[in-house]
């Protein structure tokens, strides 16, 4: 919307040593997939450490975040939980594809249609300049419902390999949960998002987060993706 021109200029200067020491790096991850596959459940589980009692349809975009520590560095993971209904993604969710560092595709293992939609979701991401250069992972949700599985692990693994993504299968209601509200990641939800975070951390210099002091002069960096035609650094980080 605003200032994408000046933002592009600033992203260059930010890599210089004249910067104040970084505060916290922010990784923005967008979570997409068909309606009802459990996107809200997964993001809530990761950020709140427990599953929500009940989730409702997401209208537009919800945002959740969690601070994690990776190799001694504190990193803020921002999850953008999106509406699954097609009409929302066309004109509404667009805005939130910008400056995203990684994508989590979710399907429901008990719903073959949600698996068949994945190519469309991948295409959608490409249109927003989120192609293979951006870390992407595939999550098959609801694997606790073993009796009604419609998407076998082998098929999903093939698909994930073809698109160079790691595959995780998880359950929105893990039967192995400890019952006291805590989870020792028997459901892999931690692993899913931490895998993405590690991948992002190991990647080349993400633009560092800028302290927010003096909000008047805070800058928003769009990472250049919109300005340089997507040349090679599509996942570069933004901050402000």
């Amino acid at each position: 919307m605003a200032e994408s021109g000046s933002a592009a200029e600033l992203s260059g200067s930010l890599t210089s040593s004249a910067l104040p020491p970084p505060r916290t790096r922010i990784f923005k991850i967008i979570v997409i997939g068909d309606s009802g596959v459990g996107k809200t459940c997964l993001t809530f589980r990761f950020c709140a450490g427990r599953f929500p009692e009940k989730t409702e349809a997401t209208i537009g975009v919800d945002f959740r975040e969690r601070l994690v520590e990776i190799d001694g560095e504190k990193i803020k993971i921002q999850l953008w939980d999106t509406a699954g209904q097609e009409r929302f993604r066309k004109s509404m969710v667009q805005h939130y594809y910008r400056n995203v560092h990684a994508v989590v595709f979710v399907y429901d293992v008990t719903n073959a249609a949600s698996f068949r939609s994945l190519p469309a979701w991948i295409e959608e991401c490409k249109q927003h300049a989120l192609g293979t250069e951006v870390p992407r992972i595939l999550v098959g949700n609801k694997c606790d419902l073993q009796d009604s599985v419609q998407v076998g692990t082998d098929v999903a693994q093939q698909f994930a390999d073809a698109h160079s993504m790691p595959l995780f299968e998880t359950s929105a209601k893990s039967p192995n949960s400890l019952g006291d509200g805590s989870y020792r990641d028997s459901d892999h939800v931690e692993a899913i998002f931490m895998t993405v975070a590690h991948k992002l951390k190991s990647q080349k210099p993400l633009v560092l987060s800028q302290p927010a002091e003096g909000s008047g002069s805070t800058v928003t960096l769009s990472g250049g993706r919109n300005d340089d035609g997507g040349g090679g650094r599509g996942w570069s980080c933004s901050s402000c």
Partner: protein
Amino acid sequence: MRKHKRKKQIGAVGGNENGFVTRESDGGRKHKLTVIHQALIRDPVDIEALRRAAAGNGGLLTDELRRKVWPKLLNINVYKLPPKPGREVRENHKDYNQVVLDVRRSMKRFPKGMPASERAVLQEQLIDIILEVLKRNPQLHYYQGYHDVAVTLLLVVGERMSIAMLDTLSNFHLRDFMDPTMDSTKHILNYLMPILEQVDAELHDFMIRAEVGTIFALSWLITWYGHVLSEFRHTLRLYDFFLASHPLMPIYLAATIVLHREKEVKQTECDMAMVHHLLSHIPQDLPYELLICQAQDLFEQFPPSLLAKRAALQSRKSLSISSFQAFHLSTLHQRPDSVLQRLTRAQGYTTSRHGLEASPPAARGQLWREGNRMMKMAVWGLSATLGAAVFAVAQTAMDWGPDLILQLF
């Protein structure tokens, strides 16, 4: 007079169970009841008085009144309600799966103490209502959040009146949200920032710098806040207001909410995620009466036509806005329920095939006594008829003097 009345309301914030400001004496409430009943039995119905009552302090006060006034606000004849949908309504509809998915997981919208079995009955009715309206209007497309509007209507006016109300709302107030794409909805959201700019340029600039966009207000707009408010009485209060107002009013209210939180917003990190996060979580203790007054003032000060002159808003036509005047005119010549009932009978119109409205009084009494939950649900549909009985009395009382009406309530 309207202005003066509003001034008086500004300081009033607290509310009792029905959202009516307790500081106002019981006399104020009684006065309002009288005004509403007088407006309802006028011929034609005094729709402007009903609008003022619905938007004004405390809204329509009780669900009983809502069942009488809401249909009038939408020009609905309660004696000619659509029939209860049959099984066929669920067959072959492209949105069936999505509707079922959204309704089945919308547990939060139902009163907390409601037994699961009762809720399940209502959820099935909700699916039927939505699909029935969509089937009657093939040009309309379901959106997630439409079910939040439908459930609010269902919980107050019952299944058949909900169909009639939802049908009208979908063709007018909600029309833009029901296009094949959400482009028109985006257009409506684009009215938000210009309003903020007029009132608080600094706040506006901050939000532009943060690139927050307007999606934080999307669910507010397309569900009339039903999706985000946890107290049902607040949702009802806002529905009173919106049913009596211009289709853009939810945007003006969104503006007042953002302005109300101006300090919080400015203290937040100037970042899309942070500002989106802050604004999309609506505080549950908002001073609704105050904000409603402010939204009305903003609407008068910066009407849509004025805002539309701005370049960004010119490119697109809104069906909700362009059809509003015709809708407004259509509501001006409604007959009171007592007359409608007579006319309906005279026409030999019978609803007995379709529902309970025409069932003899004895049968009705039996229904009440049944106490069976399913029956209770069905009885919702009767309220319109029972309401009419009250009006017959009220009308007689009017002939004797308005003071007598007060004693009725």
